[in-house]
């Protein structure tokens, strides 16, 4: 177990270093001068003077050679300092902390919605393969997949806020303001998980041990939920783990439509503003998140399916 953890930590280090270098280079090769863009934004669209631009570049070290800038930045990161925003001079770590909770809350709520829909639907669909329930749920999954997030968001607002007056249209802070964004975000995910769970269930239902279990006279409910679902969940966990990471970023549109703060918005706004320190810090944090999620997924495998070992043949 520990060997596995150490090895994973080693590769993770490489992955993160790679991510940080690539992001750094990409930002510098993106058209649009950060000094001019930031100053123009601070001035509400007016033109900064050449002197002001030079002063800004100098103060932020933007004229240094790129490798030096990178070393400066990564040196700070290793000491826990992600730098300050060009635009507002706020610490990047502070901005990330401020925006992390709303995004996490949304991602978890979205995932809960997704699982609440997907698990029963996937199971029913597989058990009643070829029946009308199966077709119905597959159609619903297809709809869920093809519906753009923002459109669904507006639709939910129209129905639940305007027609039924049950929930607020937008905002952040209370539980009722979380419901519509969570449903919006969760349905797309639910569709993916439903389809995956269905095919995985069908595969497992064909396995011999299931036939054996049935022939022993076990009740169908036990066969389905205890023997089949548990094994069918393994590929689903991988997807849930990875998708959870995507949810953190993918929440951007939902965050914009429902006027919620969050990391997705922070990232998009910073990219457009060419606020490099925020972009670099945030990408690194997201990369760390993905690496950790992947690791946790691997560990979870071990508990769901004891056949997978940490020693030989790691996945």
């Amino acid at each position, binding site marked *: 177990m520990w060997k596995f953890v150490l090895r994973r930590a080693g590769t993770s280090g490489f992955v993160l270093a790679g991510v940080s270098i690539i992001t750094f280079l990409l930002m510098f090769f993106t058209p649009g001068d950060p000094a001019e863009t930031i100053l123009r934004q601070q001035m509400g669209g007016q033109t900064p003077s050449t002197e002001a631009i030079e002063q800004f570049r100098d103060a932020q070290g933007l004229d240094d050679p790129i490798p030096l800038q990178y070393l400066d930045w990564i040196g700070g990161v290793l000491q826990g300092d992600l730098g300050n925003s060009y635009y*507002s001079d706020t610490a990047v770590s502070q901005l990330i902390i401020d925006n992390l909770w709303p995004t996490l809350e949304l991602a978890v709520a979205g995932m809960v919605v997704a699982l609440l829909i997907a698990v029963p639907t996937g199971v029913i669909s597989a058990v009643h393969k070829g029946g009308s329930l199966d077709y119905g749920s597959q159609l619903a999954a297809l709809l869920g997949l093809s519906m753009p997030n923002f459109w669904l968001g507006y639709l939910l*607002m129209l129905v639940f806020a305007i027609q039924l007056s049950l929930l607020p249209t937008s905002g*952040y802070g209370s539980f009722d303001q979380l419901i519509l964004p969570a449903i919006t975000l969760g349905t797309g995910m639910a569709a993916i998980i439903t389809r995956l769970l269905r095919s995985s269930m069908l595969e497992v239902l064909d396995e011999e041990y299931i036939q054996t279990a049935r022939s022993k006279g076990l009740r169908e409910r036990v066969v389905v939920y205890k023997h089949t679902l548990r094994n069918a969940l393994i590929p689903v966990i991988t997807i849930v783990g990875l998708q959870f990471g995507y949810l953190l970023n993918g929440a951007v549109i939902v965050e914009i439509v429902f*006027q919620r703060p969050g990391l997705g918005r922070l990232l998009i706004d910073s990219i*457009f503003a060419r606020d490099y320190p925020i972009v670099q810090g945030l990408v690194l944090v997201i990369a760390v998140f993905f690496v950790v999620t992947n690791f946790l997924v691997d560990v979870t495998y071990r508990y769901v399916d004891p056949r997978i070992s940490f020693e030989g043949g790691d996945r």
Partner: protein
Amino acid sequence: MPHSRILASRRGMLKGFGGVSAVALAGCLGGSDGSDDEGQPSEPDRDEQEQLPSATIALDDDPTRDDWNYYGGVTPYWTNILEPLVWVSNEMELEPWLATDWEQVEETVWEFSLREGVQFHNGEEMVADHVVFSIEAILEEHAWAPGWLHIESGSTVALDDYTVEFTTTDPFPTFPGTIAHNMVAIQHPDRDHTEDNVIGTGPFMVDAIDQQQEVQTVAFEDYWDEEPVLDELVFRVIEDPNTRALSLENREIDIALSPPRSRIASIEEDDSMFLERQSRPGAGYVGINLHKSPTDDTTLRRALNHAISQETIVDTVLEGVGEPARGPISPIIYWSAHDEIETYEKDDDRAAELVDESSYDGETLSILVANDMVDGSEMAQVLEGSFSSIGVETEIQVLERAAYSEAERDGEAHLILKESGSNSGDADYIIYEGFHSDGDVNQRLYRDEGTGLHNLGGEVDELIETGFQTADEDTKADAYMEAQHHIADEAVTIPLYYSEFIAACHENIDGLELGAIPQFSRWTSLEHWE
């Protein structure tokens, strides 16, 4: 208070005519003069209603972003919590505000007399030292401020409690207009801009700030001018335009600034809502690259102008928000030559003839559009179609804002879709930045290669300089008018529309005063009925 009553009755009368004007205007949307509510079909009976103490306005901008000292992070933006020395009227005229009077005593020296008896939200009286503090704070915290205001640290001096002297770095006749800007608001030194502790002189004070969500304000009882009708005013942040409109429909908010154009028709048809319009000192136009072949040919540029129908663009793409433009400068700016400029009428035959006469030989011209320009892509498609029908091929290039800026200044495109505007009482820089060789967009290419983008150089540069350097309004108007004639004759731009600021309101709202510079909207006469 008396003022607001007079205003309310004036509006009541106007609303009586509202139904008539709505019908009259139905066929010619965009023909608005920016005055009161054409969209309101009938006058609600306020006698049977009670006044409510608070109202909620949804903004498309986030005033809670960052700290209170930054541009987008609303120093006084929208909220009227802080105030500048000089105000801007809806006719773009400068009005005394925290300063009652100003005078250019020498070429670079300005003396401002302050209003006496103005109180800060903490109860202290505003004096000259506070003005010095506020200016010094801006200069210290923003690298761009000295270049923008043309003053340096130490050159703002309190002569006595109510007189402040500014010495500009060079002769700068538009100084009063430049500081008629929300960014140059007067703040008390005890304010802590990183802690959202705002101390200004405005009619509203900060009560609570909920990051990225809303700013709650309360009326300031000791306000020096007319006290607000409302006790509380909430500025809610809803950046998505559709969500803003839906929130209004759901009554979560009372006013939605800049609702989406696609919903204008339904708002105007809905009895429970009305639309308020106000002309802005901005214009949308296509800037033509004068230094790139084949748009360096005046004949081709004239042909392109004849291909476009401004009315169609305003009616279709803009859903009637804005007015068809004749030049690149909005007519609400007093020196705009709107009335004198000859227009290129929509005439495909004439356009096609001109294309034949020109040096155009079938190459594809590029139209550069920024991704965040509202309806920019749709407008570019209309342009593409119109040019195609006179035999000129174009391709649309949509770039994200920073990349667009870069591509524009590098002169990569032939045609650049853009919008000009002013956020202060100084509208002079609109013509300077767009059309002077050393202005914003032309500067890079002009300095590097002696070319530029939309600069005719020579006489036009001189005219713009003359206008820019004079404090005499007539001289300015004459010089700029002459420059605008040259710009139109040489077809440097294809004017598209003059901008309009709109707000959708619930019918229980009265007394809304939108500003020509939207951030200069006043909320003191706002009334909310049950």
